[in-house]
């Protein structure tokens, strides 16, 4: 966790200890800059280009050689996006799906994580093992039966069909359980003696303490549900219920040549996450590290 923490000294900026041919001159800065600067720029280029070209006209985007900065910046791509497509509706759909997903996972996963870590009762271990085992099942295996199931219930091609699979997750339950296991038990015991109900203890004492883990879970869920493509693609065919990602992906087929509009859409879909990432980088990195080390 916390990739910003550093324990190793800056090896490269230190004078080398080993005997080497004496060097006549030394770089006035760490040699790693020569590696990192080009790499950083290379990684930033696509996103920077995305933003810059969303401000260009279609004609300028299609010019060769490409221009770096827009000659006369214009918002016509955004205007076209918002007037000629249902993008506002798709944004609303995506926001609804992502907020339901985040709220539901925060509540349901922390409840289950609390139950699995702090209570002893019949069937607890069996249920937990079963839930962990489901993490092995690839989603591709579940798509066909889930589609059939949802169409029998009659929710296929509606927003609930893309919300329901995000309501809770084995990963989230596991994450919250691990977190609660690390909390000291005395707190809740005191509250229990004061006559608090089990849910009262969970709601008033435990949940407020769980903020770091909840942030990790919320970011994980937000990224997943906002960016999901394959399941909306399967379940939704009516463009009123498109998510933003699905709507943009379908532009690729129908409006492939209208680059200014595509780029504007891309900015609208990606920029919120980028801003959020830069603001909450620490939590994002904790999320990535945890999802990497869960095994």
């Amino acid at each position, binding site marked *: 966790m916390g990739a910003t923490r550093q324990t190793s000294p800056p090896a490269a900026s230190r004078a080398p200890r080993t005997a080497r041919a004496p060097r006549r001159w030394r770089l006035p800065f760490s040699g790693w800059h020569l590696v990192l600067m080009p790499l950083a720029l290379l990684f930033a280029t696509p996103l920077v280009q995305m933003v810059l070209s969303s401000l260009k006209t279609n004609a300028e985007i299609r010019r060769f050689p*490409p221009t770096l900065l827009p000659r006369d910046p214009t918002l016509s791509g955004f205007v076209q996006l918002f007037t000629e497509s249902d993008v506002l509706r798709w944004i609303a759909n995506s926001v609804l799906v992502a907020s339901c997903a985040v709220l539901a996972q925060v509540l349901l996963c922390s409840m289950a994580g609390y139950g699995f870590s702090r209570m002893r*009762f019949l069937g607890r271990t069996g249920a937990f093992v079963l839930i962990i085992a489901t993490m092995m099942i690839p989603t591709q295996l579940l798509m066909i039966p889930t589609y059939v199931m949802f169409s029998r219930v009659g929710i296929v091609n509606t927003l609930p069909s893309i919300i329901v699979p995000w309501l809770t997750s084995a990963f989230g339950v596991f994450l919250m359980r691990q977190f609660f296991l690390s909390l000291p038990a005395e707190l809740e015991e005191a509250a229990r003696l004061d006559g608090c109900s089990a849910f009262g203890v969970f709601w008033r004492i435990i949940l407020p303490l769980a903020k770091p883990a909840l942030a990790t879970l919320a970011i994980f869920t937000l990224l997943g549900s906002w960016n999901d493509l394959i399941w909306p693609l399967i379940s939704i065919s009516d463009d009123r219920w498109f998510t933003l990602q699905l709507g943009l992906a379908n532009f690729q087929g129908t409006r492939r040549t209208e680059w200014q509009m595509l780029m504007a859409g891309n900015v609208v879909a990606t920029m919120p996450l980028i801003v959020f990432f830069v603001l909450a980088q620490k939590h994002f990195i904790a999320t990535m590290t945890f999802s990497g080390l869960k095994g």
Partner: protein
Amino acid sequence: MNGLRRAGTGWAFIGPSSLIILGLSVFPAGWAWILSQQRWNGFSRPRNIGWANYRAMADDEALRAAVLHTAFYTALFVPASVLGGLFIAVALNRRIRFIGFYRTCIFVPFVASATAVGILSNYLFDPQFGFANSVIRTLGLPAQKFLEDPRQAMVVIAVMTLWSGLAFTVVVYLAALQDIPADLVEAATVDGASRLQAFRYVVWPQLTPVTVFSGIWQLIGALQLFDVVYTTTRGGPLDATQTIVYFLWEQAFKQLRFGYGSAVAYGLFALTLAITLVMLGYSRLAKVRAF
């Protein structure tokens, strides 16, 4: 009585999640197994055909091609992602000026969706006006067709998925690097090891569990490649980027072959499981503990 009440409270907490998770995974997984032994288009009466779907997979040229394309992508993506991630993590693991800027630049693509990656790939690698060709022309080389060339398309997809996916390996390696006590490396250098030797003999062995783990993790992801194919080439040109999951999706949801699609999905599951077990077994033999 007390035990009953405790069970009631406990299940009130774990019930909702357990019900949803098991209902949306174990139940459909079992159903998929039944489906994989049937011929069914979703409307008519399903017909039980035993192992015929699995036998048909063995003779399916298109599926074989999809497996080969997926293998090619995996062979490009997994080693590059593990080695590249390790290299960048080592580079980023120091306290120099601008390090925060470098980290942000390298990590930010992680939030880009498959749609965003797809649109950017089409844009940057456009044969007519793309940046990639602009760079290539400046170097005096002939312009390339990239995503429109059957031999290059998968490479472009690998490059762009690396761009957005590399941050994951970097972060995992970076966390592991920071857990290695600094005096360990210090001691080696005092004993006369060069910086490269210290890395090879002191740091690298400590990282092996992470290497095995992130290798398996990225491998599972690579075998399931779908999204970026859908948002760039849609399997083309000449089916050159048709992957296993893309094939599965077309079979199930374009051709409505639910039975055959389920069989392919179980095939993919078995393949993933087998490769993971082999990798784990190998690392166990090599005296490495990843989990």
